[in-house]
């Protein structure tokens, strides 16, 4: 197994840093909230606590996802990344429902005044700074390693930037006496978060349902054109698990050629696919060219 160990290490490191950032934010908000008795900051602490849960889930999923295949999981553990992204979606949905509830409560009771102290500014600005740096680092690592768990965590941290900005806006407006700006802006943020949830959740569900990644079929067909001895390819099936791609291809060969020849052609085809698609596992089923598809073969899938 020649998996890049430094890659695994880096994914873990980025995820662990996010856990620590979330611990720091939760702890400091809780402490300041208790010291100043500000309900606003205490509720921010509760929100950060949710982020902490999300970061912990991400950390564990990154740890599990690169474990090699074992007797209980012949196809590896990559799907745990997609499961973790789905969990993040749920946590984000809870957050947005909570924001809507808070905002609606304030608007309806007319109790829109919020207390503003120096501490409120310090907490909000520092959490925006931390969230910004974490979401950048996570997104970068997610792109490099094609990790959906890290991507979901990055998105989670970046939605926090939005909600903290709303809090900041609310604080500034309150200073000038515009008390209604805060809950209205919060409602908008909640809607944005729900939209993000939809996109994130759809992506996770697609992979968990063994959805086909969009363009691999064409890529494989194109590669097949350049392999000598392959008369045609069909039934290309692709699915993903975390960053791994699984491909099944049926190839047609000259029926009278020997198996040694067929094997050589298949291996060449496989090698070319590996060059184009990283972290992929190819399974080739060879058939003689004149073969009429057996109707029973697809029975299992119909």
């Amino acid at each position, binding site marked *: 197994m020649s998996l890049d160990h430094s890659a695994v290490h880096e994914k873990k490191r980025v995820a662990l840093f996010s856990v620590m950032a979330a611990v720091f934010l939760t702890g400091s908000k809780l402490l300041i909230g208790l010291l100043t008795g500000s309900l606003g900051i205490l509720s921010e602490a509760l929100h950060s606590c949710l982020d902490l849960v999300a970061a912990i889930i991400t950390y564990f999923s990154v740890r599990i996802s690169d474990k090699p295949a074992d007797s209980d999981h012949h196809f590896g553990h990559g799907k745990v990344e997609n499961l973790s992204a789905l969990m993040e979606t749920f946590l984000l949905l809870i957050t947005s429902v909570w924001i809507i509830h808070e905002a609606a409560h304030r608007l309806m009771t007319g109790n829109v005044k919020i207390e503003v102290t120096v501490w409120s500014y310090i907490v909000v600005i520092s959490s925006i700074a931390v969230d910004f740096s974490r979401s950048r680092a996570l997104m970068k690592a997610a792109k490099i390693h094609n990790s959906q768990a890290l991507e979901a965590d990055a998105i989670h941290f970046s939605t926090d930037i939005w909600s903290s900005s709303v809090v900041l806006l609310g604080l500034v407006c309150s200073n000038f006496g515009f008390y209604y700006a805060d809950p209205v802006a919060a409602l908008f943020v909640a809607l944005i978060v729900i939209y993000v949830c939809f996109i994130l959740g759809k992506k996770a569900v697609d992979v968990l349902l063994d*959805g086909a990644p969009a363009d691999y079929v064409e890529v494989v067909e194109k590669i097949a054109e350049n392999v000598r001895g392959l008369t045609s390819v069909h039934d290309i099936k692709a699915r993903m698990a975390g960053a791994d791609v699984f491909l099944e291809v049926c190839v047609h060969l000259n029926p009278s050629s020997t198996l040694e020849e067929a094997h050589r052609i298949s291996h060449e085809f496989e090698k070319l696919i590996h060059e184009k698609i990283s972290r992929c596992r190819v399974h080739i089923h060879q058939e003689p060219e004149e073969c009429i598809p057996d109707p029973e073969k697809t029975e299992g899938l119909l």
Partner: protein
Amino acid sequence: MNRSFLTRYIWLSIAAALTTIILKTGAWYMTGSVGLLSDALESIINLLAALMAMAMLRIAILPPDKNHEFGHGKAEYFSSFVEGLLIMFAAACIAYTAVERFLNPQPLEKLGIGLFVSVIATIINFIVAGILLSAGKKYRSITLEADSHHLMTDVWTSVAVIGGVGAVGLTGWLKLDSIVAFAVAMNILRTAYKIIRRSVEGLMDASLSPQEQETIESVLSGYRKQGIQFHALLTRQGASRRFVSVHVLVPGNFSVHDAHHIAENIEKDIRNALRDTVVFTHIEPVEDEISLDDIPLDR
């Protein structure tokens, strides 16, 4: 196999949930007991769960398409996962109430007509749960199994209430009621854990059970006697479908035509031994030493 008839079982579950809601609301209307009203509200969760199971089953039975080349069967795991969470939530609620009552014992409320309604609703739920469970096992549908366990949660809750009242009546010890309820909650929690675990494992591409793998192995060993070798056997469970792929090693001087013929026979035999299995073979010459290399997942 066309599995669209499986939705009929979910209709049964929906009917049971509606009947229970009507019964309990009616009883509340007659007695004014708040307990019955909250019971009726709980049954609404059953209705929502059944509707979700229906939606997921409808997706699961769709044929494979361009975006889902391996079919949609895994949608079943989503509904069983959520049902597992709902069952876990119910267990937590019961345990919470039990602990609260243990700390501050309260005299039991008179059940009267409430008891009568609960017994009827329990019987309905018990029967429907039994039908769903046997259908779920027979047609290998985790959605139906999970919905059955969800209905059984209600049955167990009612058994706890009635059993608790009975136990208190016999012994006169008020706290016994909450102890019984707590024990029931723990049992429900165990069910929830099993369902959630199975759903997560399914979504994680868990391999087939050792027994199923043994069945495949016995088919292959028949061919081994003819000098054909195998390696790289990979299996996974996709809700009601089983996916199997294997490399077949035959003499290198065989023609593609003959080797393919053997491979097709092996596929057919595995399909006959394990129904709803999708088999995929790769043929290789036995003489070539690179044939035997198991390809690692990541390279």
